[in-house]
């Protein structure tokens, strides 16, 4: 495996191409993710966007991106990436574009699109071995419309459409495995609160060809109901408690890039959950021991089965 240059935080790029002053909410975890992608991928990029919070990064006549941008629709950003990639290839092949003016095509969608409406187009893009990077910022709900539950919402989370005492009745869809089953070049989960792990994975993907797929945890102050200053802390706890596994799929194998401590030593899921208003019902007015135990058991079960 290729050695990456990111050993410590100091090795991360100092140049941040993504402009400041966007309309994103304070403490937006998705913006944290996108910033690092821009840092590593550079300016020769085109972001192909699907409907979601980040659609509002580019509002006429402003954009924070140094590279290009196209908004498509909620369901078809990967298809949009196909058109751009193919057209760039045709232009280079017919000598109407210099190879050095080529662009890295990056799909940017939220979980609403990635886990649901856009899944068919994403599957198609992987079937066709499209040479692109896909960044799903996963804030675990339809964030831009006020945080209703999506297929990415974790069990028990209260959302605008699961306001009941037990929270969301469903279980977060395993998109990583669905994507990996397509056998693309690369799949990874990342978290903006673990920038070194994330930077290494982006760098690795940058040097590959074919579909390179990312699911980035995107803590969301307005949807998860916490103080914006907690975004990084919550992101870190998601990894430390084992709720958000950091892993990658490459060459048919899944490996974990950072494992939480053993069951006995790692912090319980409670530490992560109690910081967020969407899980407040687990603690107030009465502790919901049963549901807490279920959530903990699911996390423990996941790690017990990791070789």
């Amino acid at each position, binding site marked *: 495996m290729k050695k990456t240059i990111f050993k410590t935080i100091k090795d991360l790029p100092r140049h941040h191409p993504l402009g400041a002053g966007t309309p994103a909410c304070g403490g937006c975890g998705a913006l944290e993710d996108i910033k690092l992608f821009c840092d590593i991928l550079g*300016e*020769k990029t*085109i972001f*192909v966007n699907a409907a979601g919070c980040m*659609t*509002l990064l*580019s*509002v*006429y006549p402003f*954009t924070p*991106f*140094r*590279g*290009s*941008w*196209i*908004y*498509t*629709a909620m*369901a*078809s950003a*990967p*298809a*949009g*990436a*196909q*058109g*751009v990639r*193919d*057209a*760039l*290839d*045709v*232009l280079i092949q*017919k000598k*109407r*574009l210099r190879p*050095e*003016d*080529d*662009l890295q095509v990056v799909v940017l969608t939220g979980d609403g699109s990635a886990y649901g409406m856009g899944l*068919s*187009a994403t*599957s*198609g893009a992987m*079937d*066709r071995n499209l040479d692109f990077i896909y960044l799903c910022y996963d804030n675990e709900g339809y964030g831009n419309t006020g945080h209703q539950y999506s297929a990415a919402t974790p069990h028990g989370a209260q959302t605008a459409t699961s306001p009941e005492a037990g929270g969301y009745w469903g279980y977060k869809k395993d998109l990583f495995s669905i994507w990996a089953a397509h056998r693309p070049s690369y799949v990874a989960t990342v978290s903006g609160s673990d920038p070194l792990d994330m930077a290494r994975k982006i760098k690795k993907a940058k040097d590959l060809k074919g579909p390179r797929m990312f699911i980035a945890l995107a803590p969301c102050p307005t949807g998860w109901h916490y103080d914006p200053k907690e975004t990084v802390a919550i992101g870190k706890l998601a990894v430390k408690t084992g709720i958000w596994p950091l892993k990658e799929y490459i060459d048919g194998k899944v490996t974990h890039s950072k494992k939480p401590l053993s069951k006995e030593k790692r912090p319980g899921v409670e530490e992560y959950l109690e910081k967020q208003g969407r899980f407040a019902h687990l603690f107030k007015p009465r502790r919901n021991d049963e549901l807490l135990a279920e959530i903990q058991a699911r996390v423990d079960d996941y790690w017990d089965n990791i070789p």
Partner: protein
Amino acid sequence: MKPTLLTGNGAAARGVRLAGIDYLPAFPITPQTEIIETLAQWIQAGEMDCRMVTMDSEHSMITAAGTAAATGVRVFTATSSQGLLYGMEMIYTVAGWRAPFVLVNVSRALSSPITLEPDHNDVLAARDSGFLQIHCSTCQEVLDAVLLAYRLGEDERVRLPVIVNLDGYYLSFTREPVLIPSRKEAARFLAPYDPGETHFRAGDPVSQGVAVLGGSQYSYFRYETHLASIQALSVFNEICREYEKITGRVYEAVEGYRTTDAEIVFFMLGSFATKAKDAVDHLRKTGLKVGLVRPRLFRPFPAQAIIRHLADKKGVAVVDQNLSQGKGGILHAELSSILYNEERRPCVLVSFIGGLGGRDISVEEFFEMARVTVQAAESGKTPAPRLLYTHEELARMRGLQSIAGNRSPGH
């Protein structure tokens, strides 16, 4: 020059080949599929230097067509019916990108009930999208319309995608003699694509399809697209004259057939207009002064040319091969809206609905429509819109219902 026997689908493919396209995102659907299969074979044989990709849906296909056009290549795609509707979100979206490409729609009636044969409800659902629309009545027109569509959409005064429409089965699978322009003639008419400022490349970043907040900005861009569409009217006339010089074939935004001295006129779209021409010839022999007016260009709507053709006519039989549920014929509404303020407008417009789902319109029915329209013009009383259906058809339908068992609501 010797004509070649081609189906409407074959003629479309020929036109696309002559246009020298770079990129073909595709998705199969009856009755369009023959077009993409034909192109796939030519690409495979190295006769076309084009990249083809079969997408996962029409929604994806139209997205890819739009983004590729926005990247700066010449794009073609094709669909029908449910496919056009499945991609409708993107039909509206990509039109606003002002990145021209051509989409051939092979008309097929819409579900439900699901069916295969044509009417125009599919293509008319795209009426307000910003796509220009050219409607064909013969296979020759299909080939020529594809070349015209690229010139029209790519013109710097227009910069809009174009739908070329042909009727499923009646044109798509019907062989007619077609004159195929030489490669040289086609190239004289249609130069290689100049994307102008429409591109994505490093060092020259562009943001496309960005959000606007507020009605003022939104209105500005929507008006701009509308005005570009209106400008396409004069551009169409201009390029048709140029095409005529090269091929000798005369095209106008509106076709008039025996209209000069006509008192009664059929007004309709597409291949069934050739049936109307046949009826016109028969009726002329009986002494009735009948003609036909057929818009080739449907978007932009060639209002002035239609008004000229219909000035001082006694009556117009508007034959709609579509049905706006709860309202009636779409063409009838379009026509009424442009004639209302005209002093020399026809005395009566009579509305007929026919040819839905491929149902034929017989010559006898054209005679009947002419008779009803004459009567309306003489009495000054316009009858209620008529849904064409014969007693024999109804009897057959009753037979089928007796087999199926009748549970339809409101029967």
